[in-house]
């Protein structure tokens, strides 16, 4: 005779085999990556603040587009990066844009925008995109590569941009690039847009640029570091969270792409996590209650 007592339903909901939710997460992620539906999303105040700040940049503003891309944060930040680039580009020759990075993987990942433009909602490769938006490489748009030295590197180009970046990504000497005659130090830069996933990184750029020169900082941070950047909002920088910002920014720009696809997956997996936690806690509460009754 089997004397083993079947666990109660409340006990069972506390012990759901984890392969089930994990399998569901895999299916959700794969399906939504292959067929992004662009689930409806509200636009958060913080993303809108950054969007409006860029819209309100006066003509002639020198903008540094600073991407700290690597494989771990690419999925989260790429959508926002592409959308912000296009927001800057659509102002035509009004804004001067200089692209830099302090990630050794940065140049390779940034190049994905130009080698796989359709994935990121861009009109074409570098030349086609610049032509589409009426930009001219060297005159109102320049790309630089990897800057070493972390905080000392940030300080170096703040005091002497040419010392940190003697050439652009094509090896053209910085003295031969027309736009660079307008950028010698951080005092010549009005706005810096940073996409990153490292709190300390944000801090030392704030210290060396915003603190000393009052540069306007607009930050798209990964969800991992987002809460830790709150002390600097809104006086030192405006900031928003990467994946949410990616989806929201694409919506603001009027298209859906990689940001919406990742946003869809993240939304449903996050919702599933919250539901699982709620179910587990209800099970624990009910089990305790029934135990007390006995």
């Amino acid at each position, binding site marked *: 005779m089997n004397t083993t007592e079947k666990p109660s339903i409340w006990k069972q909901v506390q012990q759901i085999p*984890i392969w089930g939710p994990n399998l569901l997460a895999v299916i959700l992620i794969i399906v939504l990556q292959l067929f992004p539906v662009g689930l409806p999303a*509200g636009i958060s105040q913080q993303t809108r603040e950054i969007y409006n700040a860029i819209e309100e940049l006066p003509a002639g503003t020198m903008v540094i587009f600073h991407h700290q891309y690597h494989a771990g944060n690419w999925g989260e930040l790429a959508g926002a990066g592409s959308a912000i680039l296009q927001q800057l580009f659509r102002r035509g020759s009004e804004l001067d844009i200089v692209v830099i990075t302090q990630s050794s993987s940065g140049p390779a990942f940034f190049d994905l925008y130009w080698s796989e433009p359709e994935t990121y909602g861009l009109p074409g490769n570098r030349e086609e995109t610049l032509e589409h938006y009426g930009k001219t490489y060297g005159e109102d748009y320049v790309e630089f590569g990897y800057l070493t030295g972390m905080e000392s590197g940030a300080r170096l180009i703040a005091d002497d941009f040419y010392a940190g970046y003697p050439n652009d990504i094509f090896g053209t000497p910085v003295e031969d690039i027309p736009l660079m005659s307008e950028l010698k130090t951080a005092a010549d830069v009005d706005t810096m847009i940073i996409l990153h996933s490292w709190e300390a990184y944000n801090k030392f750029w704030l210290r060396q640029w915003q603190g000393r020169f009052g540069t306007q900082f607009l930050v798209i941070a990964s969800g991992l570091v987002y809460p830790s950047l709150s002390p600097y909002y809104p006086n030192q920088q405006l900031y928003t969270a990467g994946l949410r910002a990616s989806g929201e920014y694409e919506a603001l720009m009027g298209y859906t792409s990689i940001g919406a696809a990742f946003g869809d997956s993240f939304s449903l997996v996050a919702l599933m996590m919250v539901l699982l936690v709620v179910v587990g806690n209800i099970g624990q509460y009910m089990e305790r209650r029934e135990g007390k009754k006995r």
Partner: protein
Amino acid sequence: MMSFVRREGPIILTGVIAIILILREFISFAPLNSAGGLIVRFATLLGAFTTGIATIALVRYHYRHVTRRTSEQWYLSALLIIVLVFFTVTGIMKVPWYNLMYVTLIGRPFGANWGIMTFFLISASYRAFRVGTLEAYAALLGWAVVLLSLAPLGGFLFGTSISSLGTFIVNVVAAGSFRGFVVAAALGTIIFGLRVILGMERGAFGGESG
């Protein structure tokens, strides 16, 4: 002489460099500014140089494993050296498919590695977030609100209130405590810096502190 090189020398050098870098923030004096600029430039170069030294040390370490045929290690070491040499050479040669190769061979697996954490997070949050006290309920509620406020769908499902509440938690509740932490850490950094300049903190030079 050896004692000076190993003990007093680094302390004096660090002290002098630190004083130059601090003073140039407060005093506008051309020689001080150029000395400070030179030090910063040197530090940046040193950063790049250490990458080179680390690469040489890495190759030497793994080369030993390959030549000694260390069990369950030598073939991994050989692979590391091959990949290192391959990427260095193709990078220097600026082959046009370098970026694509880098992103495909290194970027994708690295990204997947991060992605796998999702499943640990699902499992950990389900099993660990069982609450029994009022404080734990408050923390759990904060977690759920911030998570849903960061998910694009959260705002749609629960209205702008979830986004506003999440923003309030991060930008008011968390910001207040973080600001206290930032100020305390800054004061600690100043005290630590002073101790290093005065030679009272030798941990930075590889010795014992105090």
